[in-house]
């Protein structure tokens, strides 16, 4: 039964990868990366159970925390880029 869940997660990872490669917008890709991250968390939890090593849930925990930082870094990147362009346009006008 773990195999079924793992398989579903793996297929979903594949679908997310297709979305990440196809795009079309950058936001679609960020969405795909975020989705990929949560799927990896699930995959690692299930495989840790499958291996009979429940002490390895630490890894999934690390992923759940770190994935968030990646997404926020991307958004901060967009925000600061937009802000910089705005300021540059203001300076050009003056």
């Amino acid at each position, binding site marked *: 039964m773990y195999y079924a869940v793992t398989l579903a997660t793996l297929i979903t990872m594949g679908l997310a990868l297709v979305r990440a490669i196809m795009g079309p917008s950058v936001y679609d890709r960020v969405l795909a990366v975020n989705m990929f991250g949560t799927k990896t968390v699930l995959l690692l939890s299930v495989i840790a159970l499958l*291996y*009979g*090593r*429940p*002490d*390895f849930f630490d890894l999934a925990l690390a992923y759940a925390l770190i994935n968030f930082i990646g997404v926020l870094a991307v958004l901060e990147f967009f925000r600061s880029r937009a802000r910089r362009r705005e300021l540059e346009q203001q300076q050009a006008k003056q």
Partner: protein
Amino acid sequence: MKILGLYYYWVFAILLMTGFYAVIAKPNLIKKMIGLALFQSAVFLLYITMGHIVGGTAPIFSSVTGDTLYSNPLPQVLILTAIVVGISTTALGLGIIVRIKEEYGSIEEDEIQEIDKQ
């Protein structure tokens, strides 16, 4: 099983050479760094693949699993430190690229060489 095992090594070869292609064929310096990071990852994958033992488990003694077969800890140690060293050197490379951009106004290899010729 034989083919499945070989597949791991083939992926290593393809990944390594994909990274290498980005390094030699792309004029963009950040793309070269990304290629280098891929190259590194391929090497990491090779080490960990070689350290794996079929039917083994991670080399952390556990009361749950009892006395069993453990995979090789040595490649894991080497790669564990190599990942952190890898990110530090990647950061150094990116730092150099940022300085090049500030001095030359470009991160394309051929444009930088044009400017140097003048």
